[in-house]
């Protein structure tokens, strides 16, 4: 019997045992996988890591008491011990009267995304890819490069006491590169895919090098309101905040500027924003959510109007709607966010700009108030001044200090070519083109 089959059998055993002990709802979610990472810095290989993990996450509800644990040693004894632990824990937990149960089925798989078998045993591939990337960035004038390349493959199995028995396998490639040139100039790219052939590694490295070289030339821009163009890496980071705000859990817990705005206009008409777990090359794609509901495309914002929050079965029932296939058993969440492409191009947006700023990356987004959406974030890796349609040089020391709804309403054009971004700031993979955003407020240090 393979290790995965062992995990599958143990998961079924756990669910049956939990139900026999009186759990009204129970899930066992098994995973087995390996991720390999090549980390590089200063054009050198800084570390080679291999993470090998296996486990079964158990979730159960006894008389509206929600409990969970993880089994990491794959024996019948450990599974039975975990079942005992959960039953005991439920006696100490307080009931959650709002819990409405897990999905009851019938269960079927949503669409399966692409899978790359080469990522199971990539051998020398990771190092070779990093070498190619470093060379591509240096060719553009980067003096130093740093980043990571991650290659992963694994399997998942979900069993629930309502009859779900679902299995899938996944693979992924994640690549981030930051290129540094003279005088603190830098450029960055971070992207993901499910297969090697879908990841434009050298193109991204070339762009990072190009941005770094461009940023060597300096320019001045004052704090205040500016017209802007946001490249996909920067935009994905802010869109991640829109995605997490769409979770009903965020709405209820006070972490969402979308609270109370279903059916209202919260973005410009150019904005159609969705979550798509069936994207063929979506790093976060999955055919089923954590309670077995088949995943599907969900329009969060359509032509500027907020259409739905992201729900699991329980939250949907409580809000008199249907699950959107986003369990998260506790907190529903997005899988792959998508900003629907428009008709523009980044080049045209820049060309048409009389005076404004091109934002290529941001970091450290923090909210003064999640409910109102007041935030600030810091451009990094090339914030460029554009005058009369031409990039003049890189600007330093500015911070975006604005409001997320105001930002979305300011989107006046969306590009037609999207990039599949995943980064430190955009943890949820996000497929997005560049966008033009009018009147973004910038501040700067005063002392």
């Amino acid at each position, binding site marked *: 019997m393979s290790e995965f089959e062992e995990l599958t059998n143990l998961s079924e055993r756990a669910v049956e045992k939990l139900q026999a002990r009186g759990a009204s709802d129970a899930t066992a979610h098994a995973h087995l996988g390996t991720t390999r990472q090549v980390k590089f*810095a200063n054009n050198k290989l800084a570390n080679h890591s291999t993470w090998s993990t296996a486990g079964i996450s158990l979730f159960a509800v006894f008389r509206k008491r929600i409990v969970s644990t993880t089994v*990491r040693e794959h024996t019948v004894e450990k599974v039975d011990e975990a079942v005992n632990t959960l039953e005991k824990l439920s006696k*100490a*937990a307080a009931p959650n009267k709002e819990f409405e149960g897990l999905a009851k089925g019938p269960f079927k798989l949503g669409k399966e995304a692409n899978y790359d078998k080469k990522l199971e045993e990539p051998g020398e591939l990771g190092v070779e890819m990093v*070498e190619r990337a470093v060379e591509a960035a240096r060719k553009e004038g980067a003096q130093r490069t740093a980043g*990571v390349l991650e290659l992963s493959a694994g399997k998942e199995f979900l069993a629930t006491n309502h009859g779900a028995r679902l299995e899938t396998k996944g693979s992924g490639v994640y690549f981030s590169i930051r290129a540094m040139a003279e005088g603190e100039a830098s450029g960055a790219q971070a992207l993901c895919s499910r297969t090697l052939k879908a990841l434009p590694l050298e193109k991204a490295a070339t762009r990072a090098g190009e941005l770094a070289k461009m940023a060597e030339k300096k320019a001045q821009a004052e704090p205040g309101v500016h017209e802007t163009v946001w490249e996909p890496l920067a935009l994905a980071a802010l869109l991640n905040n829109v995605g997490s705000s769409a979770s009903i859990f965020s709405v209820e817990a*006070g972490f969402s500027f979308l609270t109370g705005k279903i059916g209202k206009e919260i973005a410009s008409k150019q904005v159609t924003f969705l979550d798509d777990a069936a994207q063929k090359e979506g790093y976060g794609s999955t055919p089923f959510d954590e309670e077995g509901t088949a995943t599907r495309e969900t329009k969060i914002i359509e032509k500027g109007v907020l259409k739905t929050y992201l729900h699991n079965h329980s939250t949907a029932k409580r809000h008199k709607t249907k699950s959107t296939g986003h369990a998260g058993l506790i907190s529903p969440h997005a899988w792959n966010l998508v900003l629907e492409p428009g008709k523009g191009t980044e080049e045209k947006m820049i060309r048409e700009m009389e005076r404004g700023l091109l934002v290529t990356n941001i*970091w450290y987004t923090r909210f003064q108030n999640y409910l109102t959406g007041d935030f600030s974030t810091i451009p990094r890796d090339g914030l460029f001044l554009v005058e009369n349609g031409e990039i003049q040089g890189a600007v330093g020391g500015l911070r975006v200090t604005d409001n997320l709804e105001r930002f979305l309403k300011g989107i006046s054009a969306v590009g037609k070519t999207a990039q599949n971004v995943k980064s430190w700031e955009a943890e949820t993979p996000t497929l997005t083109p560049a966008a033009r955003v009018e009147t973004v407020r910038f*501040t700067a240090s005063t*002392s």
Partner: protein
Amino acid sequence: MEEELAQAVIEKARSLGASYAEARLTEWHTSSLVLKNGLLEATSVDRGNGLCGRVLVQGNLGFFSTNRLERTNLAKLTEEAVKAAKRGVRKLGAGVALSREKPAKAKWEVKAKQDPRTVDFEEKVEKLKAVDQAALEPGVKVPARFISYVDAWVKKHYENSEGTRITSSQPLVEFYYNLTVLEAGQSMQHFREYAATAGFEALKGWKLEENARHQAESMRRTIREGVTAPSGPIDVVLSPELVGIAVHESCGHPHEADRILGREAAQAGESWLKKDMLGLRVGSKHVTIVDDPTLEGSAGHYLYDDEGVKARRRTLVENGTVRSFLHNRETAAQLGTKSNAAARASEYDKEPLVRMGNTFLLPGDYSEEELFEGIKHGVYFKTFMEWNIDDRRVNQRYVGNEAYLIENGQITKPVKKPALEVTTQGLWSSVDACSENVEYFAGNCGKGEPMQGIPVWMGGPHARLRNIKLSVST
């Protein structure tokens, strides 16, 4: 813990040609609770074991981790780590070296007065509910309340091929809340983190109910009575909470030598400090900032780091001058010095990176009253909500949550969202006095890829800043 597994990994790695090898076994027991708007959303426990190994082959690092501790699996992964490191020999080799450190053998532990593993869950749940109720007590409208609690007991066994063997055992308790207050059609939010290397008894000292109640009341008052912040230049007093976040962000992080040397460039960023900047003046003579993991009970407490180096207090800035950087063995070797025990890994499956422990500004000799007495017109930042800093750690922003006007030495009206947006040298050069009391605040510090969140303390005394220009947040 099966310590012989660590030995087996080291022996295997050495037999395959690694010049250096280490293994870290971790055993953990955690429990966590989430309360949202008074209802218990999650009650979890987790017990597990994991092991990681790190090898050095001709200047190239290989790392692996697994929670499958069968010997055959460990041998296979050790082989893969050595093989992966060897690839670097032929390709873009790193030239990694580790500083020479005296091998250490030690066992250390922190005991809890109230072992969180034995505290009834009912008691933990009651505590969360009590804090939730406290926020509502003053009759303030707090429609969204998110409260979480985590306790952990972590045992580690570390050893390396140079003869270092360290075994440790320590508890950790953490508490977090985010409160949303609505008043007259306006809203305000505030979060606060608490953490200590201690047992459940630590919660009593945190005054959780009192603080939650106060925060709710204070936000309502700010909405009702708050005035716009004067733009200045004016004088500012930063509370220990504000001083804490500022020392962490603008002093602790840029002193991390792996940032200075570019190893974390793509993720956490680099540093405005360069390797030859020891001795540079960055602040006034009143500014001495240290990092000290040996502080008992602190969130960032350890006696040996995750490379087996003995912990000690590090002076980062002394009387306004850069005195030392934070090092692990890799960065220390690069700069020709010794590690000062800053290598920390957040979990069993993470490589150790250069991290802070507990970073704080040392106190001065003013009483709090004297600090305020010297100000005719100013702003007192007591708590904050929004903050950030650029990836070289120069331009930072802290927006006050609970903040007050200072008029003729007295704290008067609440101020709405005053924003201190300032450079690192601008900030620390403006300090003209510090109070004699130090307080610490907990935080979860992020770095690395995959992300490693580690518990830290940060703090200091009240600090007075002269001639600061403030802005009002949107």
